């Protein structure tokens, strides 16, 4: 029950707090400077793509390593204590 209440409170607070932060910090009435949208937006896109591809490489590399290292046919594979003793 406490978990439900805590979860509900968390969701509600996020629903209220995040829009409030957005409202306070988002673009106000103060004037901005001249800029080239293309440079800013595409620059952001390329930076985030670097992050995305780095994460993708690390995660997929780790999955490949896990699958190869812990396959049954790997010479280095050791049975778990459950498999070795036949007890579950």
């Amino acid at each position, binding site marked *: 029950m406490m978990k439900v209440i805590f979860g509900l409170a968390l969701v509600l607070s996020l629903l209220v707090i995040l829009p409030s932060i957005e409202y306070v910090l988002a673009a106000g009435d103060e004037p901005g400077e001249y*800029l080239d949208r293309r440079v800013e937006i595409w620059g952001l896109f390329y*930076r985030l793509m670097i992050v995305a591809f780095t994460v993708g490489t690390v995660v997929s590399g780790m999955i490949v390593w896990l699958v190869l290292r812990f396959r049954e046919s790997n010479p280095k594979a050791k049975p778990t204590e459950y498999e070795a003793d036949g007890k579950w």
Partner: protein
Amino acid sequence: MVSGNMSGHHSTWPEWVYVGVVIALLCYVGAEAWNIERIVEHVPADAEIIKVVGQQWLWTFEHEDGTKEIGELHLEKGKAYKFEVTSKDVVHSFNIHDFTVLMDAVPGRVNTVWFSPTETGEFPIQCREYCGLIHYNMRGTLYVENGV
């Protein structure tokens, strides 16, 4: 993570490093995107306001001095323009692809987006929200000219 009483003690630091790196990357992505959005949304004080009205299936533009244009828009290079975008019928989306300008045109609502053309020439204007039978041909042309 396997608990200690199942397979004996083992180090969990790689997991914590992994979690930490993921959280750091998410924070970086969120902060960077928010910052660029904030920078891009701030309109220069001297921006000329242009009212943009979308309707099936054409764009109408009204300059500050009252000049109206249909299907084409003439602007000066190097000046800032703030578009006040709305719609007369259904939802459209005002898009000048070459300058990464994109804003929904919603009936009963005025959305704003600004830009400053950095080069002269002719650039296509299009609708980027499916809005009916002739959506594909809801196009216009942006003419960017050197200022006088």
